[in-house]
């Protein structure tokens, strides 16, 4: 029985791997066909040239410095966004006046194209701070809205029970409000990773800070280096995937540790 289960699992893994490999081959093939049909390196770079360029990047110290700089700025923006979103989320959850007051701001941030904020930030801030500011601005409303709504929608019966037994504010927060909000908070943090990364890179492209992914994308466009443009785009996609997986794993781990240390029974939910 054990053997048949492990054999079955092995088959499932192989099948999954084959599916992924075929998908990658399909899209690379499609890219190659498009390259051949168009026949202009300036418009579509060859996947082979891009692969060669990526291999050239790997031993280059500047490449890793560039990635580190972009990662550092965007991560800082992400952390500030999560922190500010959590604090403001809690504040507006308990004050309907402040909630009403801040609603137009949240709506404006959500509906305004990110490029408008980038241009404004370029006017207000030194260009090295722009990606940090933009990432914060994109991450904060997601965390803010999720934290507020999860606290506001906390089980009313539990709140009434807490009032009946004279729970103080800190006890209510610790036992009812925060544990109710944690799954939505974690889900918001996960959603915000991809969005923050994309907005941060977009900000870098427009404000071109030294040794950043954005300046390399911009230079590739200015000097019509299509192979470089494609290569850096591949780098952005791969980093985005790695960053998302990494941060989601870190968040899950922190979530489980904090919850078990506090003696909470909460299942993580991917909302």
């Amino acid at each position, binding site marked *: 029985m054990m053997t048949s289960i492990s054999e079955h699992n092995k088959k499932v893994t192989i099948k999954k791997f084959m599916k992924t490999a075929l998908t990658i081959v399909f899209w690379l093939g499609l890219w190659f066909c498009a390259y051949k049909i168009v026949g202009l390196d300036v418009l579509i770079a060859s996947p082979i040239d891009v692969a060669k360029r990526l291999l050239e990047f790997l031993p280059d110290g500047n490449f890793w410095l560039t990635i580190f700089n972009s990662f550092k700025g965007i991560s800082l923006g992400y952390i500030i966004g999560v922190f500010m979103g959590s604090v403001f989320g809690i504040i507006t959850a308990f004050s309907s006046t402040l909630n009403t007051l801040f609603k137009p701001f949240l709506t404006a941030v959500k509906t305004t194209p990110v490029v408008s904020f980038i241009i404004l930030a370029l006017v207000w801030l030194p260009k090295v701070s722009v990606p940090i500011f933009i990432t914060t601005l994109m991450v904060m409303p997601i965390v803010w809205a999720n934290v507020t709504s999860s606290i506001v929608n906390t089980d009313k*019966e*539990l709140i*009434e*029970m807490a*009032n*009946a*037994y*004279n*729970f103080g504010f800190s*006890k209510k927060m610790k*036992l*009812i409000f925060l*544990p*109710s909000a944690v799954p939505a908070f974690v889900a918001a943090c996960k959603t915000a990773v991809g969005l923050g990364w994309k907005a941060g890179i977009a900000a870098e492209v427009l404000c071109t800070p030294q040794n950043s992914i954005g300046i390399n994308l911009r230079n590739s466009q200015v000097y019509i280096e299509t192979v470089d443009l494609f290569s850096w785009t591949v780098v952005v996609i791969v980093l985005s995937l790695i960053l998302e997986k990494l941060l989601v794993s870190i968040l899950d781990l922190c979530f489980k540790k904090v919850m078990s240390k506090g*003696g*909470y*029974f*909460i299942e993580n939910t991917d909302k």
Partner: protein
Amino acid sequence: MKIQINNLCKKYGDKTVFENYTNTFDFEGILLIKGVSGLGKTTLMRIIAGLERADKGEIIKSADKISFMFQEDRLIPFVSVLKNLTAVCDEKKALYYLSLMELENEKDSSPLSLSGGMRRRVSLARALCYDSDLVILDEPFKGLDKELKIKICEIIKNESEKRDSIIISHDTEDAEFLNARIVEM
């Protein structure tokens, strides 16, 4: 314990629950409030406990702190059974009441992992271990079998020697188990 209710009025939308309701509950030990559903037993107790406001009228009571067991268990699902109790009293007291309810082995369990009857007993333990002048128990025997109900009645009877209790129930048999005075609504 004396609770005086004067000209109480309470409406939910168009539905009138109380219209100038006046009554006095003067009792020692256990008072069992009996009546069919929809008469306002729970509403009256919620108003007495200060969980709800009356539209008009007044309630004069000699209890400052009231312990209220809800019809629903209302246990905090995020923390253990013991933490649900230590939220209202110290650990020693919480463990004592858990052992009275024969739930000491479940102290570290999640409330969600307990059966309905167990959750009811945890909810009752929480109401009893809260330091109060009066205990109000709304349908405390819901979901309990007869054997367990008799055991719980004994615990409530012993507790009523320390402080008075009001119990809401549909069942007259409960009054016999509890040696309670019955008030029909």
